[in-house]
C-alpha cells in the first residue's frame, strides 16, 4: 500500500509499505494491505513503517492518520526520524519533565513532555 508521511514543512516519506504501526489516542493500531477506511487522532508515540528497504521508525508528537483506498496518510506537525533525534537533548528534556511532575503530578504539559522525551529515546534506541 502507498504510505505518505506529511509534515507541515515537507513530505517526509512517500512510498510502498507492507505494514504501518502507530498509536492513536485509544491505543496502538496496525494497518495492513486493504485496511478499511479509517481516520484517527494520533497520540505521542512511535510510528513504524515497513518499507521495502527495512523498517523506518519515527517519533510522533501527535497528529492524524487517514486510511482510504489502500493508501495511508500520516499527518504530523511534530515528527522526528530516528536519525534526527538528539539523544542527550531528549534525556535532559526527560529529566526536566520528571522534576516538574514530581512537584506537580497533575501537570499535563510536563506529562506530555515526558512522554515525548521517552518516545524519542525509545525510537533512537531502536534504530
Amino acid at each position, binding site marked *: 500500500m502507498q504510505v505518505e508521511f506529511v509534515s507541515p514543512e515537507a513530505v517526509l516519506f512517500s512510498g510502498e509499505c507492507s505494514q504501518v504501526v502507530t498509536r*492513536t489516542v*485509544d491505543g496502538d493500531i496496525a494497518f495492513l494491505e486493504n485496511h478499511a477506511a479509517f481516520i484517527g487522532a494520533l497520540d505521542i508515540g512511535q510510528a513504524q513503517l515497513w518499507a521495502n528497504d527495512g523498517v523506518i521508525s519515527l517519533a510522533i508528537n501527535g497528529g492524524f492518520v487517514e486510511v482510504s483506498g489502500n493508501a495511508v496518510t500520516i*499527518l504530523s*506537525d511534530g515528527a522526528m526520524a530516528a536519525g534526527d533525534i538528539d539523544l542527550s537533548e531528549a534525556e535532559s528534556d526527560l529529566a526536566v519533565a520528571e522534576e516538574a511532575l514530581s512537584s506537580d503530578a497533575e501537570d499535563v504539559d510536563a506529562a506530555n513532555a515526558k512522554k515525548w522525551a521517552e518516545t524519542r529515546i525509545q525510537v533512537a534506541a531502536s534504530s
Partner: protein
Amino acid sequence: MAGGQERILRRRISSIEATKKITRAMELIAASRIVKAQGRVRSAKPYSEKVTDVITNLAGGGAGVDHPLLTQADQVNRVAYVVIAADRGLCGGYNNNVLRAVERAITADQAQGRQYVLVLSGKKAAGYFSFRGYEVHAAYEGFSDQPNYSDAKTMAESVAELFESGDVQQVYLAYTRFLSMGSQEVTVDQFMPLEASEIGADASENTAGGGYEFEPEPAEILSRLLPRYVEARLYAALLEGSASEHAARQRAMKAATDNAEDLKTNLTRIMNRARQEAITTEIMEIVSGSEAMSDDGDHDLDDAITQSLEGSLAALIPDRSDA
C-alpha cells in the same frame, strides 16, 4: 575652477558605484531567496490539503460543526487583524501596501463602531503601528525571511486564544499573496471563525465520508484537527508573505541598480564635459599667450609676461575694475 568640479563629480560617481554594487548584491540575494521561498510554499501544500481532506471526510462522517472555531458570533464588537509584513525595509511597497490596507480596514471598522486588536508579524509592522499610536496586542519578529512552522504555531495559538475567549468576534488575516514572480497581491481575508464551506465541513453525509471508522469520535478528532488547520493556514500566509517580500525586494533593488547605472552615465557625461572645458580653456590660454609673444616678437619677453599676468589677475578679481 573646472578642475575642482571634476574632482567633486568623480567622487560622486565612485560613491554611486559603491551603492550600485550593494543594491546589485541585494538583488541577486533576493532573487535566489524567491526560489527557495517558493519551494517552501510548495512543500507546505500537501499538509494543508490533506488536513482539509480529513476535515471534509470527518464532516461527512457526522462530526458536528459546533466547534468554537466554527461558531459565528451574533454581534461583532471587536475585530482582530493578523498582519504579515517584513522585518526589513528596502523592499519597495511591500510593507506599506499591507499596512495601509489594514489601516483602511481599521478605519472602516471604527466607522461602524467596532474596536480593533492587532497581532503583528514583522518589525516594520510593529514600527508602523506603534509610531502611529495604534494599540498593538502582540508583535512577533525575526522570522519574516524564513518562517518556520513553530513560528506559525506560536502566533496561531495566541490568535486562537483571543478568539476562543470571546475577546474578539472576528479575525482577519492580512498578507501579500504570491501570484507569480511579477505580481503579488495584498489580501485581507477572514481567518476566524472558519467558514464551514471553505474547509469542506459543510459536506453532507452522503459524500465520501461514509464508511470511515473513527478513533476516537469524529467530533473529538475535529476539535483536535481545527487548530492544526488554523496553524497550517497561518503558516501558508507567512510563507507567501516571505516569497512576496523577496520578490518585492528583488524588484526594488533592480530598479535601484538601474537608477544608479543611469545616474552614473549622466554624471560621467557631465564630468567629461567639464574636463574638456578645462582642457579647452587651458589650450586657449596657451595659444593666445604664444600668439601674443610671436606678434610682439621684437618686444621684450618681460613685457609679455607682465601683460599676461595682469590679464589673469583681472580675470581672477573682476571686482577690482569696478572699484
